């Protein structure tokens, strides 16, 4: 009994150390989205001039499994993400919608001319209000939407080949069944 009492502080230390060790592996900048499994927000955004795809509203996305990608011409990681999005749209046939977040229209169009346009429709969110409705805080962000129009997954930061293969593509395949 006595001996057990002496071991107790050591056990407490091990428990706390294990807890902190797990905490260290988590990135505090990744805030879990409050919108997972909730319907996507209602919005209607104007088209991006000179690109030739329509603007974007909630009703356009309803009924399809799709990705909604929040991008901007001023967003540096978006540049590395765009080739992956292009391949997704062309080779995998995934439907992509874009929200051009807090961008000047000419700059947004120039960005897409340089890096390619993978989106079926693009809404320009000039003042960032729709972004707040989506809980956006770091561009790029990508949302996976199911047929019922619910947000099923949120990718914060650029899609990497790894997150694509381990999370996004399997989820899209599962939702498309």
């Amino acid at each position, binding site marked *: 009994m006595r001996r057990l009492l002496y071991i107790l502080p050591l056990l407490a230390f091990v428990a706390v150390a294990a807890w902190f060790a797990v905490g260290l592996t988590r990135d505090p*900048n990744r*805030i879990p989205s409050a919108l997972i499994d909730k319907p996507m927000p209602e919005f209607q955004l104007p088209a991006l001039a000179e690109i030739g795809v329509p603007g974007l509203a909630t009703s356009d996305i309803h009924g399809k499994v799709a990705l909604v990608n929040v991008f901007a011409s001023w967003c540096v990681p978006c540049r590395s993400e765009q080739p992956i999005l292009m391949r997704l749209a062309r080779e995998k046939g995934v439907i992509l919608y874009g929200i051009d977040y*807090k961008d000047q229209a000419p700059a947004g169009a120039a960005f897409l001319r340089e890096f390619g346009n993978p989106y079926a429709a693009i809404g320009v969110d000039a003042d960032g209000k729709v972004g707040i409705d*989506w*809980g956006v*805080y770091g561009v790029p962000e990508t949302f996976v939407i199911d047929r019922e129009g619910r947000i099923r997954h949120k990718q914060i930061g650029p899609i990497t080949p790894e997150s694509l293969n381990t999370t996004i593509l399997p989820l899209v395949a599962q939702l498309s069944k």
Partner: protein
Amino acid sequence: MMLRGLLAVVAVAAALIAQPALAVLPSEMLKDPTLEARAQTLSKDIRCQVCQNEDIDDSAAPLAADMRRLIREKILAGQTNQQILDFLVQRYGDNVLMRPPIKPATWLLWFGPAALLIVTGTLIAVAARRRTAAPAPPQLAPDEERRLREILERRT
């Protein structure tokens, strides 16, 4: 030496006079001073999602500026502080609040330290009481008593 003293006085005076810089821009402020004061107080409770240790009143991030503008619009539209906070929590989660709400998931956070203090304090108090309550050492036998007196007397 004189110069150094003078510099110290100037530095202390400057630190006392300087107000913490607010990130809220004059152009963002509401014309009505009471509403503006309400907006600034409310801003102190909202965490900037980009620089997470700053509230939106202090943060220079563009998202914080958008949120400052948004809460001012909502205040002008007649919404209560709670309605505005609920709006943001729906979109960004509890993380958007500077003080985590008290609910089962955060009980450990809010009450854990006090509980730990009470538990360990009680343990220490019990242990201390047990020590003072330990039985007094047995009385000396008569011959031991005599020897002790002899030793003490020899000393003096």
